[in-house]
C-alpha cells in the first residue's frame, strides 16, 4: 500500500492527489484543495522510495494512462492537470 499523506477537512468524497514536489501546477492544485478546505490524501511521486515507484505508476496509470502530474482522483473520476473548474465540477 502506498503511504499517502492525509489532509483533514470537509468530507466531500474521496480525493487523492498524485503530485511531484518540484512541480508548479501540482503546488497550485494542492493550494487550491487547501483553500477549498476539503479532506484529501496526496503523494509526491518524486519523493518515494525506489521500491514504491512501480506501485505508484500502476495505481496512477489506472486513472491516467499518460501518468502525468498533477492527477486528482475525485470520487473515482480523474481530473488531469490544474483545472479548477473541473475540480469544482467533479466535487459537485
Amino acid at each position, binding site marked *: 500500500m502506498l503511504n499517502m499523506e492525509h489532509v483533514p477537512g470537509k468530507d466531500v468524497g474521496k480525493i487523492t492527489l498524485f503530485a*511531484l514536489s518540484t512541480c508548479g501546477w501540482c*503546488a497550485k492544485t494542492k493550494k487550491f484543495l487547501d483553500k477549498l478546505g476539503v479532506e484529501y490524501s496526496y503523494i509526491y511521486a518524486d519523493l518515494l522510495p525506489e521500491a514504491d515507484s512501480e506501485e505508484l505508476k500502476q495505481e496512477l496509470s489506472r486513472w491516467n494512462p499518460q501518468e502525468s502530474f498533477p492527477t486528482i482522483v475525485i470520487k473515482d473520476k480523474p481530473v488531469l492537470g*490544474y483545472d479548477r473548474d473541473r475540480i469544482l465540477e467533479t466535487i459537485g
Partner: protein
Amino acid sequence: MEEKIAALYTKLKQEAEAGGYHLNPDIDFVEDLLSGITKNQARYGYMACPCRLASGQKGADMDIICPCFYRDEDLQQFNMCYCALYVSNKIVSGEEETHSIPDRRPPAGAPNPPTDVTTRSNSLPFPVYRCQVCGYLCARNHPPEACPICKVSADRFERFL
C-alpha cells in the same frame, strides 16, 4: 529569491531572450519551478523537468531535460511549455494567460531517432545535425558544444541527414 536560484534565473532569462524565447513573467511561479529544477539537478545530475517524473537515467530522460524536446511545439500550440517556465509573446503581453496543458511526451518516453540516416547521408559532403530542442540544423562533422540558438549541450543533437 535564494542566491543560487537568482543566478539560474538571470542565466536562463538571458539565454532565452537571446534566442527569441521568454521566461514566464510570473516571478513567484518561476522561482518555484527553478527551485524544482535545482533539486532535480542535485538529485539526478541533470535539469529534469520539474513537472515530469524523471527516471534517474539521463539517457532515458534526454527529452525532458529543461528545455525539453516538447517546449517549442507547446509554445506554438499553447503559448507555454508544459511546466510554463517558457511562454510565448502572447503571455508576456498579457493577451493570453497561463494554464495547465496536456503532456505531449509519449507515455513510454521519446521515440527513437530515425534509423535510415546513413543511407541518406552518402551524397552529402557533411553530416547534418539537428538540435532536438529548437530544430537548429548544422552541416559539420560534429554538433556544436552548445546550440547557438537555444544553448542546450551537444548531447541534445541528433544526426539528421
